[in-house]
């Protein structure tokens, strides 16, 4: 699988990331880091213990990372989550579908990245 194919599979914008980061090698290297990043775990745990501030920062980090790597689908989900959490003190049920969507996109992305780096 090429990096381009990987991007197609995980719903990312290959042309955009290529124009900014310049080489496949670099893109692949940083995709690998996305798979290792602990922000999603942190987000999930923070939501469970209702630490809304920490949850916001974690979602924000996921969003920033997606932006840098043009992971469009994951970015959209992360952005919705981030905005829902911004300045928020209380947990609410409205967060559940947002998190489920984010998690779904995250797993799809990580699966795609692992397939790429397995080669």
């Amino acid at each position: 699988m090429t990096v381009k194919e990987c991007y197609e599979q995980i719903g990312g914008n290959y042309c955009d990331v290529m124009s900014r980061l310049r080489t496949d090698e670099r893109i692949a290297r940083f995709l690998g880091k996305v798979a290792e990043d602990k922000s999603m775990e942190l987000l999930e745990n923070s939501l469970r213990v209702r630490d809304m501030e920490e949850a916001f920062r974690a979602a924000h980090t996921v969003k920033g990372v997606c932006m840098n790597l043009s992971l469009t689908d994951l970015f959209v989900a992360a952005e919705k989550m981030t905005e829902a959490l911004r300045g928020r003190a209380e947990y609410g049920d409205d967060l559940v579908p947002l998190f489920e969507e984010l998690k779904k996109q995250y797993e799809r992305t990580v699966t795609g990245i692992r397939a790429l780096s397995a080669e």
Partner: protein
Amino acid sequence: MNRIKKKILIVDDSELNRSLLADMLSGDFDIIEAENGAVAVDILHEHELEIALILLDIVMPQLDGFGVLSMMNRTGWIKTIPVIMISAETSGTYIDRAYDLGAVDYISRPFDERTVKHRVSCNFAFSMRQKEMTNMLSQQIYQKEKDNSLMIEILSHIVEFRNGESGLHVLHVNVITQMLLERLVQKTSKYGLTAADIKLISTASALHDIGKITIPSEILNKPGRFTPEEFEIMKKHTVDGANMLAAIPFRKNEALIKTGHDICRHHHERYDGKGYPDGLKGDGIPISAQVVSLADVYDALTSKRVYKEAYSPDTAVDMIVRGECGQFNPLLLECLLDIAPRLKTELTVVSLGSHTDDKIHDTVKQILHGEKGTASDRSIQLFERERQKFRFLSDISGEIIFEYTSVPETLQLSEWSAELLGLPVRISDPSENCEWNNIFPAEDFKKFLNDIKRTTPSNPVATAKFILNINGQQKWSKIIAKSLWGDSEAREPDGAIGKIVDVNDETEIMELLEQKAEHDAKTGLLNHNAAKRKIDLIISDAELKGKRYALAVMDLDNFKQANDKYGHLFGDEILNIVAERMKENIRSTDIAARVGGDEFILFMEYKDTLIPQIERIFKSLTVKYKQFDVKVSMGIATTQVCNGGYDELFRIADEVMYEVKRGEKNGYKIYGAK
């Protein structure tokens, strides 16, 4: 400016974002990373001067990006280290707030390699230029002040030397003027004098007599009273001096020139209006001229001149107050009376040389003080911090740390060292100082100073070992010093810094090891290598000293049988007894060694005949030990017959020894003798 490779600090809580940026920039810069604002602030404290630029995220745990910016505002770092914000936040309020707090640029995500590189290098170059400009500016200010003070000093000294004065008059007038003015502003604010004015008037006071350069020296240096005509000429120096200053093109408006002009023209006016050249009265006379006039009179009275002896300071003050030397502002007379006791001591302290530097230093400090937070101001703070660090480290290091200056010869000890040694922190003339020489013997200290003198800028470190007397104990100490050159043109260093380390234990161990390495473990005699080294050294200048030496090589006879018959322990006893007998029967200058197995050598000096000496040794060795008859075969070679080094001597002696062994054994033979 390029001493250190420039570092960029990347502050972002996402490891991925940091490495992405690091990846883009690592080609041109060294990268330091911080995972939150608090870590970033710690790094800034530590590496302030090395960090050329900061990339700063906003949303972070512990301390966020705005927190870092506020901290940088408080410490002043924001003025010297450019900060570029990097954030996924693109809302106007965030960006505005960052700019308000002093960020220079804002890069939003996603990062584009070209954008990041371009913005970083632009901002970096811009801040570099700004720093260079600041440095240049402070250099120029410093240079200008230096030039001004220097010019004034040169001018006034020309006048003084022509005047036959000591050269101290200008300095004295300067000090008296300053003291009078400082006292005056305590008493009244009516003259509106600021600290800067006082500095200016004191500096300009040096110019008061420059007009005298136009007066013929016969009049200037006339011992007796002036004729009325001569006095008229003499009076001209006030107007002439003022005109000289007024004639300086382009600089007419400069405060120093204006003040100098007033002082020159009016320092012979009288408070009652009877002075010259303009007959000004009371406070119609500029206050600068009033003060300098009083200072001038006081110093003239207390100094020796061609036409008079020096009056004592008390007499001088009396004469002035009684109106014998002109009429002065009563307020200024009060000031004079107030400072009179201090004047006596101050004036004896003032000397040539240091003064100009002091003044420049003050002025530059003052100027720099006005612009808070500039690079130079920060350098001073940093310097002070380094000094404190150094002092702390030297105190806890447990080593004696010193600074040596050759002219005037002084030794400065760190506080801790001084306390340890029971000496003052500062020792003048250490080479002649008894207390110091008790610790560091004068002769050794001189040797070490010579070592320092021989260092060069490319090889500036001198190291030596001496026995020092530290707290009543003789201790081997290692002294390491790095020479310092104040003037790069000078060949010899003008001082050094260094430390004294206690290496007593170390040295004792080394000596023990050395001893062990040179000696044969079984018999305690020297080993063959050590003996060879020593003997070679002696032979190399034997001829020069006209001395004769003999080398005896000997081998025990029937040693193998003794071993077989009585066992190895007994064999060892025999070797030991032979070694003991050798030690007992040689002189301290002779060398005895075990070559290996049952073979020994003996190296000795002899005068005319060798045989009695050999005979005596041979007899003392071949004495029966317990049940064993000790017998040896001995071959001898002499430096008289054999030229060449130890190896040649040994080869021949060994050969002769085997001749004996092959013959009757238990005997000796000298090569070349019958």
